[in-house]
């Protein structure tokens, strides 16, 4: 099913300076948090970013949300160049793109009533009356499985799972085209996780909203994502449609990552590849293929040349010298 492109990232890069000295800050290096990555998110679909902590997933989400500016490269939403928006267009962008983070507290101010928290973005970015905004809040609370009467409560009067629902309701308030979900369920109990995942799926069908999903749980990703990009030290090393990737992992890092993920099945006979060592620092990442210091298949060329990105099956991209 071909769907039209909602968001496109081209050659996207973010380096953070590493400085030394308190007064005369000298730049002594760069954290290569996101390094020349390319991806698209289709309308009404979910792209997941997976990889170990520090590989650049959150930075990518922040670049989309304009919480960080790219070092180089470009993000376009529909046709607009995201980092060059101003005035009304920028306000519109902030209603079109929203976010849900791991810790629902971080996005919910404790001293405001839930309905004021949720309607804040609407009131700030769009000309609506308080009455209209509150009606929308009531509608959204019902959509996420809460009751409209709960609109006048404070966040601490909700459970963790309910607060995550509130965060989802807040993210939906401006009828967004895209929501960045950074670990939306990992802090929750198994049973609540299932509730929120079902909710996210239903809302996507209902509102045709696109998701950028950052998650480390590969089962969550399989359930929610249409497409998956695997990141390692700031780069996308493999990318494909979800079922294609899960059935046919090609990159040695992806293989190791997937084999280390545990399934809730005591009879699972999956082969286990355990990598030695930890992820190297993104400050001076290894030369050539960044995975070569941990890769069981590394060859001489791997430390010398950066592997090219190749399309090995339709829509299945891999960067590795083995292919």
């Amino acid at each position, binding site marked *: 099913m071909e769907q039209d492109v909602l968001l496109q990232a081209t050659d996207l890069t973010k380096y953070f300076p590493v400085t030394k000295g308190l007064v005369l800050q000298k730049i002594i290096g760069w954290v290569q948090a996101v390094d020349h990555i390319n991806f698209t998110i289709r309308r009404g679909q979910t792209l997941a970013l997976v990889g170990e902590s520090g590989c650049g997933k959150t930075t990518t989400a922040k670049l989309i949300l304009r919480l960080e500016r790219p070092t180089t490269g470009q993000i376009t939403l529909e046709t607009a160049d995201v980092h060059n928006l101003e005035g009304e267009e920028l306000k519109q962008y902030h209603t079109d793109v929203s976010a849900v983070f791991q810790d629902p507290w971080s996005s919910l101010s404790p001293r405001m009533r839930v309905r004021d928290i949720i309607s804040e973005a609407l009131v700030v970015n769009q000309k609506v009356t308080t009455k209209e905004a509150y009606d929308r809040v009531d509608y959204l609370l019902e959509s996420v499985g809460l009751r409209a009467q709960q609109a006048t409560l404070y966040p601490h009067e909700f459970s963790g799972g309910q607060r995550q629902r509130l965060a989802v309701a807040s993210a939906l308030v401006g009828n967004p085209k895209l929501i960045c979900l950074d670990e939306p369920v990992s802090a929750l109990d198994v049973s609540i996780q299932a509730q929120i995942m079902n909710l996210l799926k239903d809302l996507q069908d209902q509102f045709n909203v696109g998701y950028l999903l950052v998650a480390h749980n590969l089962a969550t990703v399989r359930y929610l994502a249409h497409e998956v990009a695997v990141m390692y030290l700031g780069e996308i090393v493999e990318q494909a449609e979800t079922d294609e990737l899960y059935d046919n992992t090609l990159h040695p890092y992806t293989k190791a990552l997937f084999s*280390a993920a545990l*399934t*809730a099945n*005591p009879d699972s006979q999956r082969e286990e590849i355990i990598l030695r060592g930890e992820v190297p620092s993104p400050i001076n990442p290894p030369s050539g293929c960044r995975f070569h210091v941990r890769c069981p298949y590394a060859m001489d060329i791997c430390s010398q040349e950066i592997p090219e990105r190749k399309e090995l099956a339709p829509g299945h991209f891999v960067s590795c010298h083995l292919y």
Partner: protein
Amino acid sequence: MTSQADNYQAENYYEPEKNIGEVVLDVRDLRTYLYTRWGITKAVDGLNFQVRAGETLGIVGESGCGKSMTALTLLRLAPKPAARIVSGEIFLDGENILERPENEMRFVRGQKISMILQDPMTSLNPVFTIGNQMVEALGMYYQEEQQRGLRDRAVDILRRMGVAAPERRVMDFPHQMSGGMKQRVVGAMAIAGTPRVLICDEPTTALDVTIQAQYLRLLKQVQAESGVSIIFITHDMGVVAKMCDRALVMYAGRVVEQGDIRTLFKNPSHPYTKALMASVPSMEEKHVDKLYSIEGQPPALFDLPVGCRFANRCEFVTDKCIETYPPSFANEQGHSADCWLLEGQSEWRQVTEAGV
């Protein structure tokens, strides 16, 4: 930086053979209540279970159901003054440790029973080097004349926990180490006294999957070498499936079902366990349209219903369930569950009274 040779070593790994022995830990009718301003929170409310030598027992259940409080009670570290152990016995190697005077507990902790926590920073002191902290921990277990070699011993234990270049690592401060490395140091300190039982309370939730895999493998190796019994507390059903021989399913302060892992995953008997298993997504399954999810929440532990604690969320609930807490039923295979549905079924035998 690791060499290529290091990477290949990972290939020569054999799953250590399990050697399960006698009962080491025997917990009977254990109750720990917390006296708070809301009332009495019955965090641990009548637990019965056993752990054998070399066995790994999982404890699973929703947040707040009493898993950590169970662990703390086993170490007699439940928070005072709020927490009180109001009944029960904890037999460790045949001795009821609840009868030991408080000042002797520090010898029991560490040498008989010990714990690894989720957040290594809470167990490591940021102002001392790893070496100093380990020597201090080890000092508790050795006579004075043996103490001279403690630094070597510390290096040795770190090596056993898979820490590379341990001679240099002992000079590091905690902040100089990665999360995975700190977790190994905490693990090393927990096994330093060669305990009989090691409690791991969510030790891998802060770790990445590849680091988690290394750590879990290490725990298995340590267990195979030392025969230590492990109690593994986690939310992660994948970790339970991988690590445990048996598990307890806790719900609102009670063990509602216990048994061997295969039966719990493949053929659970209690409706809560069934619902819990059904709501875990699988990375092996294509396109599931909708995940099963348990609606509602567990009851507050300071305001428990008289009947079955799962009744408000259970699809099989009857009047009897609401009126009376079900007895435990057990079968021949050592599997047991608290649920009225099992009453009168030929393979299940009632083992406790109803309504308590």
